[in-house]
């Protein structure tokens, strides 16, 4: 388990990291917590010529209440997200997802920005940031730009980040739906990545669902918002029948991952089960 040799640069600031990225071009990779990138390097599936380590940049580690949204620095570890009372109150789905990533060691090193930049289809966070309607902040030489979560995940391992951009912040709206959100996960027993990870944020009025956002991780090539489920339950009274009917729409019409362990049929069925459980939990 020895990676190919590589150069290592430690950036002291985002600006310095961007300069290094520009200097080293295509052969460079940003290293944050390293818990996705380093294993693939050890297997020689990834062979970057240069690693630019942003893991030590303290200006990227924060969780701040900005009123309309929570600002979470890209370098914030899963443990910080998991244990933040702010996140637990304003976006419980995010802290629940963080708490179910890997093990304690991974959560102490791995970062939210790293996961989102890596865009592993098996990761937990992507479906959650979709359901929470998050905004991704990317910084490049031309300055900062915002990317809606809905536009961010573009495919397997693919994101809307530019070649010379660094993901710096995730913004989670502090709306009432996000305060009533959850993340339920059916883990692959070995890797504990989600076979199915279902995040739901829901607004209720009376016994009805007034608005809802449903995001899935692990089900398809990239995380997605499931408007089929959303449309079926939005405006409906929340009961076993409406929830069953809505969750039956899970991943409908979408291409779903399939492997020797989990067939497409089973994964679809589990997406429905977890959507049902999540909707029921928030009702």
């Amino acid at each position, binding site marked *: 388990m*020895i990676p190919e040799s590589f150069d290592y640069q430690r950036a002291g600031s985002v600006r310095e990291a961007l300069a290094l990225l520009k200097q080293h071009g295509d052969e460079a990779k940003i290293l944050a917590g390293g818990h996705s990138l380093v294993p693939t390097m050890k297997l020689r599936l990834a062979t970057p010529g240069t690693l630019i380590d942003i893991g030590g940049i303290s200006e990227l580690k924060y969780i701040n209440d900005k009123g309309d949204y929570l600002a979470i620095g890209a370098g914030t570890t899963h443990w910080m997200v998991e244990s933040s009372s702010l996140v637990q109150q304003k976006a419980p789905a995010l802290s629940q997802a963080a708490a179910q990533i890997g093990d304690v060691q991974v959560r102490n090193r791995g970062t939210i920005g790293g996961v989102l930049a890596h865009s592993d289809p098996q990761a937990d966070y992507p479906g959650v940031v979709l359901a929470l309607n998050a905004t991704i902040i990317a910084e490049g030489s031309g300055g900062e730009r915002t990317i809606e979560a809905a536009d961010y995940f573009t495919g397997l391992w693919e994101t809307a980040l530019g070649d010379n951009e660094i993901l710096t912040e995730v913004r989670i709206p502090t709306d009432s739906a996000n305060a009533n959100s959850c993340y339920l996960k059916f883990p692959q027993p070995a890797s504990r990545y989600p076979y199915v990870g279902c995040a739901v944020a829901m607004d209720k009025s009376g016994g009805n669902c007034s608005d809802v956002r449903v995001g899935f991780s692990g089900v398809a090539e990239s995380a997605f918002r499931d408007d089929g489920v959303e449309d079926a339950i939005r405006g409906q009274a929340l009961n076993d029948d409406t929830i069953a009917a809505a969750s039956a729409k899970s991943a409908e019409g979408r291409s779903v991952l399939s492997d020797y362990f989990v067939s497409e049929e089973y994964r679809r069925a589990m997406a429905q089960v977890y959507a049902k459980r999540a909707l029921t939990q928030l009702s």
Partner: protein
Amino acid sequence: MGDLIGKSVKRVEDNRFIKGEGKYTDDFNMDNQTHAVYVRSPHAHANIKGVDTSKAEALDGVVKVFTGQDIADAGIVGSICGWQVDFKNGDTMKEPGHPIMVADKVRHVGDAVALVIAESKNIARDAAGLVEVNYEVLDAVVNPKEAAQDGAPLVHDDVPNNTIYDWELGNKEETDAAFEKAHHITELSYHNQKLVPNAIEPRAALGHFDSNEDKYTLYTTSQNPHLARLVIGAFVLSIPEHKLRVISPDVGGGFGSKIFVYNDECGVLWAAKQIGRPVKWTADRTEAFFTDCHGRDHVTDAKIALDKEGKIIGLRTKTYASLGAYLSNFSSCVPTYLHGTLMQGLYTTPAIHVDVTAVVTHTVPVDALRGAGRPEATYGIERLVETAAREIGMDPAEFRLKNFIPPFDGVKQPGYQTQVALQYDSGNYEGALKKALKNANYEKLKKDRDKARAEGKLLGIGFSTYIEACGIAPSAVVGSLGARVGLYDAASIRVHPTGKVTIYSGAHSHGQGHETTFSQIVADSFGIGMEDVNVVHGDTESVPFGMGTYGSRSLAVCGSAIMKSVDKVKEKGARIAAHKLECSPDDLEFANGSWTVKGTDKSVGFGDVALTAYVPHSYPENEEPGLDFASFYDPANFVFPFGAHICVVEVDKETGQVKIVRYVTVDDAGNIINPMIVDGQVHGGVAHGIGQALYEGAVYDDSGQLLNGSMLDYCMPRADNFPMFETDTTVTPCPHNPLGVKGIGEAGTIGSTPAVVNAVIDALSDYGVKDLQMPLTPQSVWAAMQS
């Protein structure tokens, strides 16, 4: 005896282990050392059309690249098979060659084709990537049953139908007759799937040839360093034994996979001589998946026959067992003498016939893995028994109690002669099951299950009552069955002048806690403290020729050798004491660390006698100085631990996930030296067996690729998969060894797998599910509920 035996003395070795300060093979380094990386086949079956090492050799820091051709040119054979099992018709077992590296053809993913040696491990790894091998890919066969069919791709050209031997045991005619007259027949077909051992420490070797002394040294990860020295020296590399020292320092687990002498380690030692520098190699986790011998891989059709009263009257199995691509050291005895001989189980079944066809396939070699043959046998018997009981509407516990062999202690009542060659030493099978039923509160449990079912929850209860043969093994018996080694063990006890003691053990711990258990029995025997005893093991230069640790044998066999040496020390000590006390040795009794003249207060202590033995100024006539004895112990019989396991599961109706709610064990390992260590072994064993039932299993595609060859995909059991195990014991001493001990290292693994599967099938009874293939993944359980 003192008061240490039977106490949960804390493990003395844990002082270093829990601090991360154990010394493992990879922790050792030598001056001028080089580093090796093997180039391995990415294909399961391919002709090698050419190997180009020029780019690798050109890389700065590369010392040498060897290929399979170099091995062929050197005329080196490779590791050997240590047990000959011939065909039914008398034809000799097929033994295809297994070169250290192959020159012409690869036969499994991971087969070694070249060895790169460099100044650093990183350079070696980079250079390995530059070795260009031109493969012509061929069709592969991975399923044991398919491998034996006409037209299957051949693993070795000289092994027709890929069949290494066929073999049978028991009485075919009587078994046929039993099935003719059966009132009820239960049939199952099952696959004891291929398991990857995954010891936490990967295999490693550090080889050195000292030209001044004309002597080799090999540090390696071995459960049996003397066996390694014998095989490497006498068979693979033709090194005289006195010119080869094998050192196996701390070993980080093995589960059997470090019994075997692998070609990789032999190659390292050979290469060290060729280049005149030490060579170090440590497998990475990927290599562990692709080269450590796997376990199980038996495909079996099995039946039992019952009479009207529900008594078992016959049992028949037909197994296709894969040995993988090559014959590892003990591969041939696992499906036969460690499997067929266990088919009696705990029952009075009067007619048994076992038929085994052993084949080679294009997969990683298969050999002993925790339990080795006995889990496969127990799985079949216990699944059949439970299924049969349900089919005839009898409670599975009651069915077992009705069919158990009655209690026998092996002293007043003779041992139990089975239909399949073994003679059980002592047993009280109903005692273990009844205790387990009581501990589980079975009557209440059944009510709880029915109540849960009524509420729509899928609760299931499963049993397993197992026996195993361990304490391997009487040399004459195994020799008559084809073993090419003796299976005694050896131990020396050196009493130092101040009365401190060193035990030199032929057994070698890879996690079992020998330093504690052996110290307890010796300290107790001499009436001294734990701190007065230490254990040396793992170095062929200092320990006597013992056969190592596997088959739950260390205490029963090596412990007995230790006790023989203890007796010799005591005997000689008594003569020295008698001289000091001016009496006859017969007048003395030994207790609490002193020899005392019976009926008096005249005594002399163990330390005094030790000092006298080494400062023999006033000393018995014709007595040699010193207090230092070696003993060999060849067991009179196997030992036969047994037990009863009860598993309670809840199946998630919607997802098929299985949750183990309770796990109750009553194991009988004879007398117990350290209850905490026994408990720990049961915990680990049960977890391992549940792993086979629910999580583990090597998955190959048709081309022979291992699809789950990493920890991301291959699911090992973890602590959060389990409830707290509820363990207990009964004690039925072994009648034929000095400590009355049996063995416990494998018992949990052997007992647990069928208990879990039986419980899941019980939980699914409303769905009419009679059988499922392991591992019982959520998907397979869910699919069974859909159909």
